[in-house]
């Protein structure tokens, strides 16, 4: 029964539920995955066009372009392209395709689950991401155009509105709103991925039997959960600086264009810290899934187990963990304390260790193999080559001394494009060629795939290797033209070479698009397991049925990469192959504990969000001279007591439910919600008192933080009250009442504890 595909017993999606529910507002993780994939495909097309316009302008700055309003591109139009190219590629391609698209499609199948833990939430994540994308694109067509502050949006440039430049008005606002929506969607997605991996694995699928792709998606999700919540907090503060007149990031005495701006004491570096605390893990969000896919594919086509599987899984975790400790290496020349620069440098160099482990183990996997050069394998090998090249140029930038010469030059652009952009894109291509037969039931054309690889591999090196040389000579990134400094003119021939090769490489992508869409309709039919692979996605039909396994859910009996095991007849042993063949069970229930896991993860994200705000509070308070203590209204003491009482009533209510005292349960449960409303009322009174006393949001930072903390907490508590009411009024189907009670209690108690912490913080600041 080796590798025998499970036949689809269900009708294909679409026949019973209707088109809209099956393909548009579908909760099926496979459809959501394909939706994310389509979004990424649209976004990458857009992003490539933007980059070609930039490359064209750098070489022929006086040419008339059809896309540009006035004919000749202005510097602000160029900078808008820089900003939007970076933003679209980082968020809507590199964070979307490897993780949300392929992760969504294959994570549940590879662990033997019928779907994600929270399918509706999954659908919501996608639609929010799409909304964020449309919001981002809208920035192009509003008055003033798209923002010009780069994907890093450093204030004050991004914080003052139109006065600092075109695009910094509505365009920049839309940018921040879009990114905030994206963050929120990614948080929901990440929570879903983690809960699914923790609680939905098939029997026998231990952590150390998970494919490395699952490990990569899992670690990436943890990074997303912790990083995006910090960016969300930063985005909200930046939005307040722009539209509500607060001064979180804007210092006093700013004079723009001769006009004195009415801000006080904020810290531009605070934004940089918040941004890069997100921004560096973001790099790993983009690249880790690619690492997983590459390990997976190298083993498959070398016909060997992944060399050092355990070390590979640990290295993924180590890279993820260290990724949170190195954000300062983006800020060596920012004015940050040089001692912290040294610490960040050492930590950054230490990431080289797990990265080297990965590279050595990839070589070890190839070594002694029986290498088959199918398109996915070629792209996986290309990934390794780019990862080596891009990783090594990072060692220069990780040292503050060397960075002072290379920072903000094209050297940096070359480095991150190779290691984060190109390597990740090669991971996406490898995944696409590898899983296309599974996703669409047809195979892509192998000859076109190889042609696409050769042109792209050679082309990309031709574009980005010379870029290093440009940087070493002092070519500055984000320059709309080369007339600013005298020495730049001598670097134009390099620019010319890069532009020509960039156009050729971009044209080579048309081969991919043709191959992709042509194969969708005309490709050779694929069997269930065309690559003779071992993991669970290959034991089901191509494409998989709606529940992934057609009612025959696998049990797992062995590790993920059992290739060429000595003494076996076949050179691959599927994971579900047990002592008595491929064992299967008929149904798989979603365990109730996923809801508790999901809530714990949500709280992790919420906590991270508040901790970002709290760290902003400490920085703002500690490094400014304008802080005036705020008298916290006394009514909040009463509010705190009410909130503590609500925790008691809630505990009582839960106790009654366990004792099956339905009536008492309802009473105490309702009392909790009412106490919650009372707390909000106390908070409203406190706001009125402060406002009457002249404490405004745009006044002293102590007041700004008071309003931000209390409002953010009040919103979360309001969510808790709604949840209490929903549990009380609406019986749920998938979720038992007992679990619902557990989940809501967990949230409520945590919100109350959070309040006590925030209240003490505010009192200490008084």
């Amino acid at each position, binding site marked *: 029964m080796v590798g025998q595909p499970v036949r689809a017993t269900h009708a294909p999606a679409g026949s019973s539920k209707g088109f809209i529910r099956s393909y548009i507002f579908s909760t099926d993780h496979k459809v959501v995955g394909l939706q994310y994939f389509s979004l990424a495909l649209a976004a990458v097309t857009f992003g490539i066009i933007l980059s070609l316009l930039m490359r064209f302008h750098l070489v022929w700055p006086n040419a008339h372009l059809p896309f540009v309003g006035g004919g000749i591109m202005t510097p602000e139009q160029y900078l808008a392209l820089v900003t939007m190219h970076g933003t679209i590629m980082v968020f809507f391609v590199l964070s979307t395709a490897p993780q949300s698209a392929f992760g969504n499609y294959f994570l549940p199948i590879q662990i033997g689950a019928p779907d994600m833990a929270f399918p509706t939430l999954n659908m919501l994540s996608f639609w929010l991401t799409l909304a964020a994308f449309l919001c981002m694109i809208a920035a192009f067509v509003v008055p003033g155009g798209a923002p010009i502050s780069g994907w890093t949006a450093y204030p004050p440039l991004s914080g003052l509105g139109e006065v600092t430049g075109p695009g910094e008005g509505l365009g920049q606002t839309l940018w921040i709103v879009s990114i905030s929506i994206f963050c929120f969607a990614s948080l929901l997605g990440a929570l879903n991925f983690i809960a699914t991996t923790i609680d939905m694995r098939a029997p026998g699928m231990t952590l150390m039997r998970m494919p490395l792709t699952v490990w990569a998606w899992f670690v990436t999700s943890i990074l997303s959960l912790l990083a995006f919540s910090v960016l969300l907090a930063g985005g909200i503060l930046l939005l307040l600086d722009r539209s509500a007149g607060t001064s979180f990031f804007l210092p006093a005495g*700013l004079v723009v264009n001769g006009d004195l701006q009415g801000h006080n004491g904020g810290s531009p570096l605070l934004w940089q810290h918040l941004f890069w605390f997100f921004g560096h893990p973001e790099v790993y969000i983009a690249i880790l899934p690619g690492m997983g896919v590459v390990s997976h594919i190298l083993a498959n086509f070398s016909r060997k187990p992944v060399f050092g599987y355990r070390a590979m899984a640990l290295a993924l975790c180590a890279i993820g963990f260290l990724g949170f400790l190195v954000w300062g290496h983006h800020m060596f020349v920012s004015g940050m304390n040089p001692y912290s620069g040294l610490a960040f440098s050492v930590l950054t160099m230490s990431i080289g260790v797990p990265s080297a482990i990965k590279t*050595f183990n990839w070589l070890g996997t190839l070594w002694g193999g029986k290498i088959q050069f199918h398109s996915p394998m070629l792209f996986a090998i290309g990934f390794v080559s780019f990862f080596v090249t891009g990783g090594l140029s990072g060692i220069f930038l990780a040292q503050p001394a060397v960075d002072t010469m290379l920072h903000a030059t094209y050297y940096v652009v070359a480095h991150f494009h190779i290691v984060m952009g190109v390597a990740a894109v090669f991971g996406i291509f490898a995944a696409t060629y590898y899983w296309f037969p599974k996703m669409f039931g047809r195979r892509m054309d192998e000859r076109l795939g190889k042609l696409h690889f050769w042109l792209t591999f050679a082309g990309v090196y031709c574009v980005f290797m010379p870029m290093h040389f440009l940087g070493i000579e002092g070519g500055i990134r984000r320059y709309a033209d080369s007339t600013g400094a005298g020495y730049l003119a001598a670097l134009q021939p390099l620019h010319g070479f890069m532009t020509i090769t960039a156009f050729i490489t971009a044209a080579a992508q048309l081969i991919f698009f043709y191959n992709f869409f042509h194969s969708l309709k005309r490709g050779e039919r694929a069997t269930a397991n065309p690559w003779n692979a071992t993991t669970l996605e290959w034991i089901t039909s191509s494409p998989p049925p709606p529940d992934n396994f057609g009612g025959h859910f696998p049990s797992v009996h062995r590790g993920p990469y059992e290739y060429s095991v000595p003494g076996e007849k076949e050179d691959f042993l599927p994971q579900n192959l047990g002592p008595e063949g491929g064992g299967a069970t008929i149904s798989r229930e979603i365990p109730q504990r996923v809801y508790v896991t999901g809530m714990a993860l949500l709280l992790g994200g919420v906590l991270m969000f508040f901790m970002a705000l709290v760290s902003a509070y400490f920085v703002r308070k500690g490094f400014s001279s304008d802080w005036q203590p705020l008298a916290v209204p006394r009514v909040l003491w009463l509010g705190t007591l009410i909130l503590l009482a609500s925790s008691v009533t809630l505990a009582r209510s839960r106790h009654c439910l366990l004792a099956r005292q339905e009536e008492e349960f309802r009473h105490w449960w309702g009392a909790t919600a009412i106490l919650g409303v009372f707390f909000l009322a106390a908070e409203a009174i406190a706001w009125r008192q402060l406002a009457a006393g002249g404490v405004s949001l745009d006044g002293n930072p102590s007041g700004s933080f008071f309003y931000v903390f209390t409002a953010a907490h009040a919103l979360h508590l309001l969510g808790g009250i709604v949840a209490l009411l929903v549990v009380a009024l609406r019986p749920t189907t998938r979720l038992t009442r007992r679990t619902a009670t557990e989940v809501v209690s967990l949230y409520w108690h945590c919100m109350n504890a959070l309040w006590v912490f925030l209240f003490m913080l505010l009192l200490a600041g008084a």
Partner: protein
Amino acid sequence: MTQTGKSDGGSAGPAVLLTVLLVILVAATVYVFAARLYPAPSPISSAAVLIDRQYNRTLYVAGAVFVLAQLGLAFAIFRFRDRGRPARFTRGSVAAEITWTSLTFLTFLCLGILGRKAWAEVRYAPPAPDAIQVEVTTTQFVYTFRYPGADGKFGRLDPSLINAPAGNPLGLDLNDRTGNDDIVAPDLTVPVSRPVALLLRSQDVVHNFFVRELRLQQDSVPGMMIPVNFTANRTGRYEIVCTQLCGLGHSKMHSFLNVVSEVEYEAFLKKWSASQ
């Protein structure tokens, strides 16, 4: 059910082509660096020489790893292409993992320790007592340099007095006596081989001060005063450019560092103090 065979996956063609491409990549890269086709301009300070030394050390280490890893990859691809023989089964080797982990760790540790000096020299050392003080003010899209004048003290600045068209781009408070002899110039002129202590400040957004020949790059951040020191030991005219995205005129924002003899420096001071 097997669709993979020797026909499409195991032929020597892709293996040979990929090996050749990787070898070309390594050869071309090594050639460009060895022949110094695109060198950084020669350094004009001892700190810049230290940075170059650290850069070169890193280049040797990274270059060696680059050559070994890419050629290793090329070798593995060529040597272990599917030739009909079964793969050599192995799950890994703890000894190998420990070896390359500790080797990498030691290499990075050594590089990090060696690089500390170049960083410390630039950033930690306090300015020499006789250093020439110059305040650098950045604004969209202009550099303004201020010398304290004969009294060695900078006059008070008031943002509300800033009026560039009227000749007061910094907002100098004319009622403050210490400011009467301040010299304000659009270029940075310093005497050769004398320590210079710059104080970077910004009026509007984040800008940057970068001189290639000094290997010196530093953001200027509104609300902060950031000190940087250098000693230029070769006369000449060097370009100062802004490397921090600061708005639509970013690529035009630039100025000059004039490293001159003592005599010329005195003449410069005299000329500018007379004009103000």
